[in-house]
């Protein structure tokens, strides 16, 4: 890693937090996509059998 100078800890902390939150956002968004898709499939299946 290149020399980040005297304030390296703050630079690394900033990037760490940003990447953590960003990856968290991506993860939550994608998991929601699948969660709702599965929920819709389950309800549509029920409607076909139940109706």
């Amino acid at each position, binding site marked *: 890693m290149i020399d980040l*100078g005297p*304030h390296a800890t703050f*630079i690394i902390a*900033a990037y760490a937090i940003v990447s953590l939150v960003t990856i968290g*956002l991506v993860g939550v968004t994608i998991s929601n*996509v699948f969660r709702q898709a599965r929920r819709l499939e389950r309800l549509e299946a029920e409607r076909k059998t*139940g109706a």
Partner: protein
Amino acid sequence: MTDQSETISSNWFSQLAHPGMFMRWSAYLIWPLGLLSIVLFAVGLWFAFFHSPADYQMGETVRIMYVHVPNAWLSQFCYGLMAVSAVGTLVWRHPMADVSMKAAAPLGAAFTAMALVTGSLWGRPTWGTFWEWDGRMTSTLILFLIYLGLIALWRTFEDQLRAAKVVAVLTLVGAVNIPIIKFSVDWWNTLHQPSTFFRADGPKAPASIITPLLTMTLAFTVLFLLLHLLRMRTEVTKRKADRLEHLKIARQQKGA
């Protein structure tokens, strides 16, 4: 009162954005946006760390700017998008406008929070404290409060369809107030700190800083558009599922 009838306008614009149509054409955008944002992040980070010199004034801490400025920009851009969606909900009665507004609010809050955290991490080595009541940072903090208010209002409504229009009104009221808040905070800032020799976004950035800054900003913006698209698709699916659930409950009541 006389012949008051609501006909759904069927020009191509609302046709294109009809939930069913939206789900079809937006599916094609997911992978291109995803790949583009990964490439942009890779290039941006490479520039940020390996290919740009330290700033003669800020030193190495300028690299924090490469994540702070994009988030600060996105917190404004996202509110702008929500304001346009609010007008879409209230004025053009656009079917997807409230979905877009609801999908954008939490993202806006997250980007604003990141802007605040990176701003204070940048402030510590530069100003010596984690929080300096600097004009720009204070405005960003107030914007964060407005985002929280909007999300809270969304969640307090049970009936999401009615919530959409009411939240749209608050979004527009907020949009009108943001410039006033910015102006008053800057005025307040000059009151208490006659001059900070160092504005948060620094003097005119030399070329070597512009490229990483621009690439990272583009990367974050593309990521935001992708996440916004995905959240809109999730909201459409959720509303379809909710409707089926209502039918199931109604059927069960009739049956019981």
